């Protein structure tokens, strides 16, 4: 059963000549308990897609059904509550609030829900136990390594037992050992029944995914089912082309190699420009008629 359902969803920023099409008529259906990795170069619309799915942003056009309920027109406060109860976020950096300690950071979503202090602390401790950070519960974020911060962020994302976990490049700032630790956590979450959406630049990460989406210019170019434990087929090609990858630059080179490996599509910008031209032609025709 699909938990996320996007129909012809577009997201357009700005207006006039400064129009940017971040998402272009995206159709996407994600079932419960899928682990979806989303790959694509910078500016391909990965984050915009995550923001729309995560209810941080509203689509300009199109329909979004979350849990079989349309969420396009609901109020901001209601969106916040759905976000709190249904979705857990993990970002690339600055995940934790610097003034709160680890325990308080993890318990924060519960406090917005109105859970009592005792219960909050207990739940947060359980969650920290699960991610192996219980011994650091009174540490402040500045006292933790990047990997540890991500682990705590994952604990916080999980605290409300959300159906969906959205992670925007959670391993982007981590070394390979920490990356692996963090990804194992995501794999564990997935095993326990959550739907995971994970944006990444690293083809290796697709090893954990059951499905891989490749994006470019606001569209999903390629949608591929993948065997958990194996790198996705398309991503694999990139690895073979550009080996060995050790640095971030190599990683970016890896992603361009991935994009080279998938079929091309007319760029969205070209399409917009085409539409604009059409519109100006129409305007001229109307003006001519008026003159007559």
């Amino acid at each position, binding site marked *: 059963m699909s938990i996320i359902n996007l129909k012809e969803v577009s997201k357009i920023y700005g207006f006039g000549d400064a129009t940017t099409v971040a998402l272009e008529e995206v159709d996407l259906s994600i079932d419960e308990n899928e682990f979806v990795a989303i790959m694509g170069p910078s500016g391909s619309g990965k984050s915009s897609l995550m923001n729309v799915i995560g209810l941080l942003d509203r689509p300009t056009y199109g329909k979004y059904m979350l849990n079989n309920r349309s969420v396009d027109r609901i109020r901001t406060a209601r969106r916040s509550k759905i976000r709190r109860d249904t979705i857990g976020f993990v970002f690339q950096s600055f995940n934790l609030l610097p003034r709160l300690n680890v325990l308080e950071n993890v318990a*924060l979503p519960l406090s917005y829900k109105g859970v009592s202090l005792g219960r909050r602390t207990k739940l947060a401790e359980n969650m920290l136990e699960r991610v192996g950070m219980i011994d650091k519960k009174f540490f402040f974020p500045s006292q933790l390594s990047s990997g540890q911060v991500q682990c705590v962020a994952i604990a916080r994302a999980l605290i409300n037992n959300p159906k969906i976990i959205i992670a925007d490049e959670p391993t982007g700032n981590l070394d390979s050992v920490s990356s692996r630790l963090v990804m194992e956590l995501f794999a564990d979450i997935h095993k326990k029944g959550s739907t995971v959406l994970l944006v990444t630049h690293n083809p290796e990460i697709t090893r954990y995914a059951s499905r891989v989406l490749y994006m470019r210019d606001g569209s999903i170019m390629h949608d591929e089912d993948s065997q958990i434990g194996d790198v996705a087929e398309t991503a694999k090609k990139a690895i073979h082309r550009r080996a060995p990858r050790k640095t971030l630059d190599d990683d970016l080179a890896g992603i361009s190699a991935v994009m080279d490996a998938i079929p091309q599509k007319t760029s969205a910008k070209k399409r917009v420009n085409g539409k604009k031209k059409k519109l100006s032609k129409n305007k001229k025709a109307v003006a001519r008629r008026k003159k007559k």
Partner: protein
Amino acid sequence: MSISYRDDIYLAIRTIRFAKMRSLLTVLGIIIGIVSVVTIVSISKGIEKQVSNQINSAGKALIQIKPGVLEKKNSSDILGNLNSLSNINSVSSLTQSDINIVQSTPGVEASSGINIISGQLSTTNGNFSEVVMGTGYQFPTVINHQLAYGEYFDPYSDNIYQAVIGKNLADKLFGTKIPLGQSFDFHGQTFIVRGIFKQFESAPLSTTTDFNNAVFIPYQTAENLTNNTAPIYEILAKASSVNNVDQVVNSINKNLLKLHGGQQDFTVLKQSESLALTTSVLNSITYLIGIVASIALLVGGVGIMNITLVSITERTKEIGIRKAIGATNTQILMQFLIESSVLSIFGGILGVILSFIVDYIIGATTTLSPIIDIPTLALAFIISLLIGILFGSIPAFKAARKDPIQSLRYE
């Protein structure tokens, strides 16, 4: 209170603890404002208490007849209230016959005219400028006060050169606590001290003269010294009972009006009216100074607004994270409102502590005795809270309306 709001209070307190210096500088304006307001209010309350003690010590049956007219102006006009005081003391329209008619009014147990003579007193210790009052022999009865040493004048001591002095003057004029039998020169006559009053309750800003620093001589003696030109400062009368004060006031008023040919150029005041008069003058002054002090509060509020705005810009990313994990706009709004309020109340608390110190110093170095009571503390608390809410609301609204995506992207 919602749980998340309680957390906000806790977090706000922690924020203050984390950045002590910054918080202290932020609330400096509030501290100064609260100290000013609390000090003014406490001084005003202190004076009110002193005046009311003074008036009560004279007894509730005391009636004052003052020259001039007390214009009952619109009490909402602050400056109008201040004027009413000066009107009373302007020109004396009272005469000896008024004293006589007050004395003979039914229900008056005792009465005394008071005139004031200016001039220098000289003793062996030097020359002094003190208030010298001519009073009738019933004066101590009228004001319900006894002598500490010696005795007051009797009905037959109308034209003698003897004096009774206030307690504070004894040491000042003669360098001894009990200067009975000592003498001083005044208007070319030598006066002998025959009595010393007990300490009077004194009050700053009171409409009556401070009797502790006055010299009392017989009324007729004073008239003689000045060739009957000494102006009558006031006539004091004591009703035979507290219950018939109103009746006596009316009779005196009627009698005097008849004598003055229907012209109301005098004022008959009960003690309660006297107190009300002082209180209204005091309130007017308090309001005026309060307005000036509130400028400091305004500046303090702007300081809080400024720092909260900076803090919100600094914490844009935090706002983004909070929104992403499910904080509603209202919860973000409340977080920053609570933070500015806690900061402001923190300033208020420091202000109150400082006020206690300032009031202690004022009490120790002046005759004022400021009173900080619970309503004053409540006032300080409410003012701080209101400033926090008022000046925190603009930044808090700004924070609440921040777009989560842009906040998350903020570097």
